[in-house]
């Protein structure tokens, strides 16, 4: 007859260890959730600030304080990049208990990103700011080329800094605005780049992208020389 004693003891010990693991994981998830929430709140606040500034200047017919706005925009972009990094490092596959929270944060991030892009386009017109905006449409899953394109953009962002504004949009995020943009720019595949209204539906190499950005940007830019 099988001696159940050790089998049962081993089972309860394993169960104990397993519960500890789940508990640690749950708390890590909770921390991730609150970290994301804090970061997206920061970004939202910056965007609201830009909106308020613009509304103030428009309503009172005062002239824009472009330097001031550009500074807030720069800060907002940095926060958005940070949030994007955080979001991309947390794979949905690893989230068990707070999945919907993280998904909500991803939606919110995309929403803020689009809002930020629109505000920046507006500031570019009103203030004549010389920056290049890149709308980058990608898919998180089953798109190896998106990883390559994302890496190329990261390298270029490092050399052009605030002169190059990249807005990475995950086409799988369920947001009506994403569908509107996909229709508007006629996106049929990923990766796709929209650079100042021109569409590139393929991997755009570092050199080619560098040339495109340098053609748009006036003056002597270190990255272009």
């Amino acid at each position, binding site marked *: 007859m099988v001696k159940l004693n050790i089998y049962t003891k081993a089972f309860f010990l394993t169960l104990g260890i*397993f519960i500890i693991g789940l508990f640690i994981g749950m708390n890590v998830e909770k921390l991730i959730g609150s970290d994301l929430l804090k970061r997206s709140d920061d970004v939202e606040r910056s965007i609201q600030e830009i909106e308020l500034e613009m509304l103030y200047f428009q309503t009172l017919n005062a002239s824009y304080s472009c330097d001031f706005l550009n500074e807030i925009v720069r800060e907002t972009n940095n926060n958005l990049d940070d949030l994007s990094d955080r979001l991309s490092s947390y794979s949905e596959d*690893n989230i068990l208990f707070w999945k919907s929270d993280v998904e909500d944060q991803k939606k919110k991030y995309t929403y803020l990103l689009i809002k930020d892009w629109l505000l920046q386009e507006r500031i570019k017109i009103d203030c004549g700011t010389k920056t290049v905006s890149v709308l980058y449409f990608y898919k998180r899953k089953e798109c190896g080329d998106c990883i390559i394109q994302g890496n190329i953009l990261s390298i270029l962002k490092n050399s052009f800094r605030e002169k190059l504004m990249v807005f990475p949009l995950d086409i799988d995020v369920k947001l009506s605005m994403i569908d509107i943009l996909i229709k508007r720019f006629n996106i049929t595949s990923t990766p796709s780049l929209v650079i100042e209204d021109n569409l590139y539906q393929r991997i755009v190499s570092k050199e080619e992208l560098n040339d495109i950005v340098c053609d748009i940007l006036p003056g002597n830019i270190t990255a272009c020389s």
Partner: protein
Amino acid sequence: MIQTIFYFFASFIGIYINMWLLLQIFEKKSQFLKRKMTKKLPKVSVLIPACNEEASIEEALDSVLGLDYPKNKVEVIVIDNGSTDNTSKIVQKFKNVKLIKQKKPCKATALNNGLKLATGKLIGILDADTLVTKDCLKKTVGYFDDPKVGAVTNLIDIDTKKGFLAKMQNIEYLFSALTKRVLSLLGSMYVTPGTLSLIREDIARNIGFSDDTLTEDMDIALSILKRGYKIVNSLDAVVYTKIPMNFKKLTEQRIRWYRGFIENSLKHRDILFNKKSSHLGYFIIPISFIAIFIGVLVSIASFNQFVNDITLFSRSILYISLSDQASLFLIGIPNLISSLLSSYLFIFFIFVFSTSFAVLYFSLKFFGRANRINTILLPVYMLGYYFLIMVYWVFALFQELFRWRKKW
């Protein structure tokens, strides 16, 4: 989601096996080195099948003939099974060694032929690449005082510890020796290797050695258990075996062993969930298969991920220079770490890893061998060597599945 559930299940099984082993080790540590000496010294016929063993047969024979055991009670029979080298000539130099020549290079047939000539009450099976210690026979024959004992095996040590592969196998053999002792105390020792394992003569003749599986030592052991006899493992009777010193030989050996394990488990499937077989049929064989299945799936998934990464990298270098790739990697390290730390997979991997480490460490400690192993090598063994072993299991499984030609 399926992937997450699978990894949870795999971790649970991994931790459970480790906990079970740890509890067994703690509970049975006092019985590990229990000796069983006797005044009765029965005649032992040592059968040595040898195929092209000119490099090692002489040393093996010297060690057997040098056993601290009455000379008239040790009968040595070498069965040259199809050698094309000087094995027979070397054996003929030993006057008190009987030599049988057979053309078929089959170990099971060789052992059966040896049995025909054997006159001992106990049959010892010795591979030609194994050396025995002087007192090893005296330390094992005592177990046969118990009429329920059908066979006795020894502690297998390796002949060299030099080189990385030998160091890894050293840990493996020490751990395996302890596992065998635990299995033996549970009446579930399921292999009688060719390291001077002793089998009662009447049982050996009744069962005989069969060549329908790649590992006749597991086949006969399971048959002994099925007949209601016990197989005991002695931890203080030491034999030294030659180990594969390169990956090619290790691959051949392991694939043969693991295919043999699968074949024998299928051949003796009546042992599964059989009341007579208790621990072996209810837990050890089923859990081994579950663990192998998990290991095989993890290996395939890791290999698939590796191929995907390589494909992506080779496509990526068409667009991004190596220096840019390196700087991207460095920039991405913090993200990689936070991604890793936030994954359940990582948390449970740490648990499986640390419990495995504890099992290995305590088993070697209770065994009095912890000082013989460099502790730093244990993680290397668990991360690198385990994975290699799983790869061999994948090959063995596929070879069995597609019925590849057997290679003894």
